[in-house]
C-alpha cells in the first residue's frame, strides 16, 4: 500500500484512474441495465393480425390509419418491401425520434409478424412488393458489372467498398457490410429515408442481383493489410499517422536529445 501511496502523484495515475472508472461504469451498466422485454409472440400472417401489430407498435408515430403524423410519415403506398426492410433490419420501431433510424442488431419481431404488418400496409395502397428470392441472393450475378453499377449509382454515398459515409445534419449512408441480399434489394426499390429510389426500370432486377453479388463479394474479401481503420480512406489513416506515427517520432526525438544517465 505504501508503494501505491508513493505513486499517487505519478502523471499516469489520473489516466489509470479514469480508465478504471470507465471500465467499472461499463460493467455495472451492462449488469443492471433493463433488458428488452420480449415482443408479443403471436404468429399470424393475415392482414387482421398485421393491423393489430401495427396499432400496438407503429400507430403512435404513423397514426391509427397509417396516415402519418408529425413524428412519422404516411405509409399507404410504401409497399410490403418498405415494411420488410425497415422492420427486418431492426430500424423500426424506432426507439426515439431522431434524424435517422439506425440499423439494430436485434430484430424485435419474427419474420411472420413482419410479413403480417407488411401485408396490412400493402393492403392500404399498392406499392413495391417483397422481391422475388431469385434476384436477391446474388447467386450467378456478374460481380464486375455489379461493381460498375455500384460505383455509378451507390458509391458516392455508401463508399466504393460499401463502408458508408456522412450526409448532412447528422444523417449518414450506412455501411453495407454483411447485409442480407433481400434488404439491399428492398432498400433500392423503396428508397428508405434519405436514399433515393432505384426502381426496377432504373436498375433492372438482374442488375440489382449483380449489385448484391458485388457486395457479397466485398464481404468475403480478405483484409490483406493491417488495421482497416474503417476503410474510410485518407481521413482515418491520416489521423492515425498524425497521432501514432508522429507521436512515436517525437518520442524518439526526445530520447535522442536526452543525455544518458
Amino acid at each position, binding site marked *: 500500500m505504501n508503494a501505491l501511496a508513493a505513486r499517487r502523484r505519478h502523471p499516469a495515475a489520473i489516466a489509470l484512474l479514469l480508465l478504471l472508472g470507465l471500465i467499472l461504469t461499463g460493467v455495472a451498466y451492462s449488469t443492471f441495465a433493463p433488458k428488452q422485454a420480449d415482443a408479443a409472440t403471436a404468429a399470424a400472417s393475415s392482414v387482421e393480425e398485421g393491423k393489430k401489430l401495427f396499432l400496438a407498435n407503429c400507430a403512435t408515430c404513423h397514426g391509427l390509419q397509417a396516415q402519418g403524423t408529425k413524428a412519422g410519415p404516411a405509409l399507404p403506398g410504401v409497399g410490403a418491401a418498405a415494411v420488410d426492410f425497415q422492420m427486418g433490419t431492426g430500424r423500426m420501431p424506432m426507439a426515439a425520434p431522431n434524424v435517422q433510424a439506425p440499423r439494430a442488431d436485434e430484430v424485435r419481431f419474427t419474420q411472420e409478424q413482419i410479413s403480417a404488418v407488411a401485408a396490412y400496409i400493402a393492403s392500404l395502397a399498392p406499392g413495391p412488393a417483397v422481391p422475388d428470392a431469385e434476384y436477391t441472393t446474388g447467386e450467378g450475378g456478374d460481380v464486375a458489372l455489379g461493381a*460498375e*453499377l455500384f460505383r*455509378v*449509382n451507390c458509391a*458516392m*454515398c455508401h463508399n466504393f467498398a460499401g463502408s458508408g*459515409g456522412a*450526409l*448532412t445534419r447528422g*444523417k449518414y*449512408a450506412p455501411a453495407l457490410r454483411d447485409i442480407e441480399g433481400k434488404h439491399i434489394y428492398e432498400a433500392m426499390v423503396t*428508397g428508405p*429515408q*434519405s*436514399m*433515393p*429510389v*432505384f*426502381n426496377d*426500370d*432504373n436498375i433492372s432486377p438482374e*442488375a440489382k442481383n449483380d449489385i448484391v453479388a458485388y457486395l457479397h463479394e466485398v464481404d468475403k474479401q*480478405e*483484409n*490483406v*493489410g*493491417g*488495421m*482497416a481503420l474503417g476503410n474510410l480512406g485518407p481521413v482515418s489513416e491520416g489521423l492515425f499517422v498524425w497521432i501514432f506515427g508522429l507521436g512515436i517520432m517525437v518520442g524518439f526525438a526526445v*530520447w*535522442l536529445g536526452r*543525455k*544518458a*544517465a
Partner: protein
Amino acid sequence: MSEHDTPHGEVVGTGDGYGSTAVRLDQGHVEGTGGLPARFEDPGLPPHVARMADLDEKGAKRAEKQVAALFGLSSLGTILFIVAYFAIDPEKSGFIPGIGNASIYNVVLGITMALALLGCGVGAVHWAKTLMPDSESVEYRHTQRASDEDRQRVVTNLMDGGEKAQLGRRPLIKFSLAGALALPPLAILLPLVGGLGPLPKDQLSTTMWKKGDRLVRDPERTPIRADQVTIGSVFHVLPESIKDSEHVLEDKAKAAVLLMRLNPEDIKPQKERDWGHEGIVAYSKICTHVGCPVGLYEQQTHHLLCPCHQSTFDVTQDCKVIFGPAKRPLPQLKITVDSEGYLVADAPFREAVGPSFWERGSA
C-alpha cells in the same frame, strides 16, 4: 537577516545547505541596472556530469549488455523475417488481436522487419549515448577570408587571361559571345512551353449534349422513358451520342448528368419547371467548385451533396448553392420527351459545366 540584504544584485550564500549560488525565496526580485553590457562573457561549458557507465564498471557492463541485446533482437527479427517469408502462406488470413482479421503474412513480415531495423538503430544510439566518449570539446572556427596575396593573385590572373584572349581589343567577339551565351536557354524553354499541349479551344465550354440527344443510363446506355422516372428516383445519365465519342472518359467527365423527379409543387423557380418535364429535372453532375461528381442526393430534403468538399445544392431552388465552397449553381439541362416517350435534351447546356477556368468569364 541583514547579511542577506543584497541591494546591488549580487548573490550571496544563504547558508542553509543549498549551495553558495542558491537564491532564497525571501530575496524576491533583484533589480538590475538595466541596459545590455557591451560584450557578453563566454559562460563556458556547463559542468560535466559523469554517466553511470563512466563511474562504475558494472554500469558500463550493463550498458554493453543492453546494446548487445538490442543488436541481437535485430538479428532475431531478420531471421524471423526470413523464416516467415518462406513459412507463412501469403493467402492465409487470421484473427490478430487489436487488428482483427488480417493477412498474417503481411503483419508478421511488418513486425519482424520493424524489429530488425529498430533493434539496429536503437542499439546504435544507445551505444553512442552510454559508452562512446562523452567529453565536451570546443573547436573554434577559423577565419574564412583568404590572405591578401591570394586575393590579389586571383585578380591578376583574371585580368591577365582577359588581356591574352584579346577580349578588350576585339569587341565583335565579346558581343557575339554574349549573344551566344544568352540565347541557348530558349532552346530549353520552347519545348517546355510547347509541351504544355494544344490550346483547349471551346472544349471546356461545350459538352456532347445537343438538341434531340436521348438521355441514357450510365453504364448500360439504355434510353429512359419519362414514366420510368418515379418520384424520389435518381438516374445517372449520359448522352446517347457518347457511343460515338472518341474520347469517352473526357466526354463523360463533362456530360455526366443527374436526373431526378420531384413533386412539381416542390420546385420553386418557374425556369426549373419549364426546363424539366412534369417534375423531372436534369442537372450537370460536375461540381462547379473543382469538378467532383455531385452524386449524393437526399430524396427527402432534395439536397445534392458533393462528396469532395461538401458543397450542397438545393434541387428545389434550381440547384442553388446552400453550403460549401462552390460559387455557382449546377447548370440545368433543358429536357423534353420525343415522339416515343423517351427523354431527350431540348438544348445543349447554356453555360459551361464544371469548375471555373481562365476564359470562362463570369457567365
